[in-house]
């Protein structure tokens, strides 16, 4: 198979002759608007983008895409998803994407559609790729409850102190389900010192922003 990988201009890639798109990807993109009809090309690109941004989403089945040439359609889906991932990773804008596709001699209708969909969803693609990779659990939510003991198996009397149960967590992006990251207990004094510590971080962040 002939090598049809893209060579990015050195000014954009920061290094010479970096092959960013494999032959399989390029072949998949070349099917768009040719083997795969223009109407189906649009649906295929839209579905690929939806799957990229919302992997858990339910997508209405379009049997026509796979009716005549299922292998080509699958390869094209793979090509579109990869193209958008690479473009986002390297910070291409719509123009850069268009140039790359034109250099590869992709069908002009497919180039237009790929570029339009990319520009429409560029922000979401960046946000999605920010989430990928290794991160410590990201706290976005805090829940609390105030609890005072009345009696227990080891003590007949209440300690007469209210304690705080603090639960730090985040929400799953796809389903909105809340995930607990850590839960701990503290008394009023300890909670005050936690708040002070968090405010100290905030103060340093503000100083950094000014600087």
């Amino acid at each position, binding site marked *: 198979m002939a090598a049809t990988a893209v060579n990015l201009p050195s000014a954009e890639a920061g290094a010479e002759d970096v092959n960013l798109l494999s032959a399989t990807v390029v072949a998949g993109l070349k099917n768009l608007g040719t083997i795969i009809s223009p109407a189906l090309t649009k649906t295929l690109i839209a579905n690929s983008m939806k799957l990229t941004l919302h992997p858990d989403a339910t997508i209405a089945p379009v049997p026509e895409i796979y009716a005549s040439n299922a292998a080509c359609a699958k390869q094209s889906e793979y090509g579109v998803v990869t193209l958008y991932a690479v473009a986002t990773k390297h910070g291409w804008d719509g123009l850069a994407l268009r140039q790359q596709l034109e250099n590869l001699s992709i069908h002009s209708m497919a180039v237009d559609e790929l570029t339009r969909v990319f520009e429409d969803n560029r922000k979401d693609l960046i946000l999605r790729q920010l989430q990928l990779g290794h991160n*410590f659990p990201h706290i976005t939510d*805090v829940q609390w409850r105030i609890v005072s003991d009345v009696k227990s198996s080891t*003590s007949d009397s209440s*300690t007469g102190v*209210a304690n705080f149960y*603090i639960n730090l967590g985040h929400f799953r992006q796809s389903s909105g389900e809340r995930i607990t990251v850590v839960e701990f207990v503290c008394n*009023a004094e300890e909670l005050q010192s936690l708040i002070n510590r968090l405010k100290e971080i905030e103060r340093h962040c503000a100083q950094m922003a000014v600087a």
Partner: protein
Amino acid sequence: MSSLGLSQQQRNHLALLQRPASDVVELCKSAFDYLINGPNLNRYEALAIKYTDTGDPEPVQHAVEALISLLISVTTRVSSSSVNLQTVLRQTFPDLDDEVLDVLEQFVTSKRNFVEGSIKSANIRAYRLVNLDWRLEVRTASRSLLDQCNVTVTMKLYLHTEPKNENRELLEVDATGRSEEELAAMHEDERRHRKDMLVQTDVSSLLYMIKTLEDALAESKTRRIRNIVDGIH
């Protein structure tokens, strides 16, 4: 039967309290030492020579252990108001003179927090936040996004199941002069009851956390919550 629920045997062991207040102070000090370092037979022998004709350390040891039982009973059964405590002690030990009762009251009051913490820790253990380290970071690139500028706050939460700082410090001080086996056991205990968590957040979530936690603290200071907590105490 007193409201402290001491058994007849424990009350017999406390017969040694019918001595001058200064001797009772010595016994109470031995009980404090017992809480931190465990039994000390040499000390009991020395006291036995002073207090008894036979010099047998057993009655002294029993008295010290009964004092610990008294401490636990008072902490679990009597509310912390001093008027109530004096009355209960007087009812429990009608034979003791006022000076000795004062010493006993001081003894049970001073270690109340310690015993309360230990009792709580024997109950359901929840993690407490004991420390927090933080670092402000800017992520400039990742495998999936080469060009970015993402400000994150990375925090390390130190959690411990020991309920009171006082107890933890005592455990740490206690580590000196211990045998290798004892130290290993203590480290094992430390490992089991400790959890360090690395988490991160962004600046707007940080502001939201501060606001929410301040709300919680403000809520706990309202008259309604105070009345409820005082009511069940």
